[in-house]
């Protein structure tokens, strides 16, 4: 990866967007979406400090990885099985700032869980974003099971994408998932958002090799490494992997090297385990800044346009918060809803 701070070049993304297969409008939409996701993230931390959001978990720094992957998904057709870091991904797939805030504030209209799950458990059956637990590494198996279902129903041209941090690749269930997918060459793309820390534990203490992608070799699939802060690099690799999967070519392990720019959650103090120098160096490689610099250099937008865009996003986000704060909490009677399907006996009848 080139060092953005030292680079005199107008931008440091891999190639140009046309070569990556993106139209001008897609780049601008991604830039807008990433700025919006960061703005939502910023405001969530404020809501946490105000005591309005009890739990916040960040996607800041992961936006290029998540938007690059989302662009490779046929939203609403391919399944996406995400983890708690994937707010920007959920937004890239179609969740709105209002929906994100309804989830964060535990409101009745929270589309992810109706106020049941703490923030970070993004879900939408309509978008085929699959609900997850908080257990790390338990969910890739569900992507594998979905892919097995396509085999039985004989549906072609479909794939499942599952995302996780490098910490999850230590879990047994992760290995069981990737092993099953490799044995049967199922249409699953395993995306590792490697931000180098499992909360406080550095990669060297959680992964025995420098690259998570190296693990793919033991499971009969290619392992691909990309700069996770480069939208074009992520998109090109994710698209290739998804197209291969849809065409029956089997699974891929895609490792996106990135960095979390905030603490793990509002309950975490990252100064205990990483230095300010390290965080600053990664701030200089902020994926949004890098994409913005590219868009300016490629004359897809000018400085005025960027300023207007940021202003418009800020206004949208404030409006969404306002609306979410006024939205009603779930009715207490709903505590008992959805334990079982309709008409099924409950244990306390």
């Amino acid at each position, binding site marked *: 990866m080139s060092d953005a701070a030292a680079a005199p070049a107008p931008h440091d993304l891999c190639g140009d967007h046309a070569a990556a297969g993106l139209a001008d409008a897609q780049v601008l939409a991604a830039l807008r979406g990433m700025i919006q996701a960061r703005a939502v993230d910023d405001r969530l931390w404020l809501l946490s400090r105000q005591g309005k959001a009890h739990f916040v978990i960040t996607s800041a720094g992961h936006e290029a990885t998540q938007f690059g992957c989302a662009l490779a998904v046929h939203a609403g057709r391919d*399944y996406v*099985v995400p983890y708690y870091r994937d707010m920007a991904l959920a937004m890239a797939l179609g969740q709105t700032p209002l929906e994100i805030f309804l989830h964060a504030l535990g409101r009745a209209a*929270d589309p*992810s*869980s*109706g*106020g*049941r*799950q703490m923030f970070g*458990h993004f*879900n*939408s*059956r309509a978008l085929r974003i*699959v*609900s997850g*637990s908080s*257990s790390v590494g*338990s*969910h890739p*198996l*569900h*992507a*594998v*099971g*979905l*892919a*097995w*279902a*396509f*085999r*039985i*129903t004989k549906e072609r041209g479909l794939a*499942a994408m599952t995302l996780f941090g490098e910490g999850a690749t230590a879990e*047994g*269930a992760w290995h*069981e*998932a990737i*092993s*099953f997918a490799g*044995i049967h060459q199922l249409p699953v793309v395993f995306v590792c958002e490697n931000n180098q820390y499992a909360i406080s534990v550095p990669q060297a203490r959680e992964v025995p090799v420098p690259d998570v992608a190296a693990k793919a070799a033991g499971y009969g699939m290619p392992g691909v490494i990309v700069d996770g802060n480069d939208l074009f690099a992520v998109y090109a690799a994710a698209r290739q992997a998804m197209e291969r999967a849809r065409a029956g070519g089997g699974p891929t392990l895609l490792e996106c090297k990135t960095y979390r720019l905030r603490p793990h959650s509002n309950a975490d103090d990252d100064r205990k385990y990483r230095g300010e120098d390290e965080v600053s160096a990664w701030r200089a490689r902020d994926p949004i800044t890098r994409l913005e610099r590219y868009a300016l250099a490629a004359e897809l937008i000018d400085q005025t346009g960027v300023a207007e865009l940021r202003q418009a996003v800020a206004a949208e986000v404030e409006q969404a918060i306002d609306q979410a704060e006024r939205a009603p909490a779930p009715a207490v009677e709903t505590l008992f*809803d*959805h*334990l*079982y*399907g309709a008409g*099924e*006996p*409950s*244990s306390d*009848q």
Partner: protein
Amino acid sequence: MPQRNMIEAIRSALADEMAADERVFVLGEDVGVKGGVFLATDGLLARFGEDRVVDTPIAEAGIVGVAIGASLHGLRPVAEIQFADYIHPAIDQILNEAARFRYRSNGDWHCPIVVRAPFGAGVHGALYHSQSTEALFTSTPGLKVLAPSTPYDAKGLLIAAIRDPDPVVFFEHKQLYRGAREEVPDGSYTVPIGRAALRRPGNDISLFTYGLMAHHSLAAAEELAREGVDVEVIDLRTLYPLDHAAILESVRKTGKALIVHEDKLTGGLGGEVGALIAEHAFEYLDAPVRRLASPDVHAVAFSDVLEAHFMLNPAKIAAAIRDLAAY
């Protein structure tokens, strides 16, 4: 009508449901070519092909997790855990994932899977082929936990479980697999989930049980009948959610309750049944609620002598009934 033992009844249920519904498939260790270590899936591979009869790696979390994923796309997976003793690696998938999918997504998804697991001792299985693990699952809303005691119920409950919109853990007692045959119809029928079965009406003592112990309890009840004690035997069949009405109705009639299970005493289902009776039928009781269960040691030592000492049997149950009757 054909006579079937329990393993034949289970095989018949799987074959009938797979023939009737293309969404149904089975997966597990050795379920394909070998037909399962107990032959529950024997013949299914030849009939339905390897996409629907899936030999998996030795990875229990994987078996259940893959089943969950497939169910999200509308399929009806039946996962086999080779022995209930090996269900522990899959507990995260069963309790944290399958049981909570509907609730945590506010009804957006549901997870219609069945997890079959042979359980129970008395077959020289030692510590890791003998366990009763049902109590690990009988306190999690969203799950249903079944344990049939007869071939007829095994087929009817398994079909009900496969058609159920929620996850079901289905325990099959190994000693019953090749036990007595009874009439089990060809073709599909269901036995309702959530309903206990009255196996023997009686007026003096209510005995609540399930699995292999239903048979031992009936034998003990016949012995006590000759001594003038009239025992009502209720086979719970569904361990969660419990059939509260059937339990309370019986104990309100007899005034005495004995719960018999092969699982350990502490933390076993008997505690829950006893608490239910204490809370809702206390004023009907003529004696303390009694539990007869396996001792609080691990099921079960390999030695014939130790195994026999561990196991409940009709004589031990008869002694417990006699004791309660005399109270």
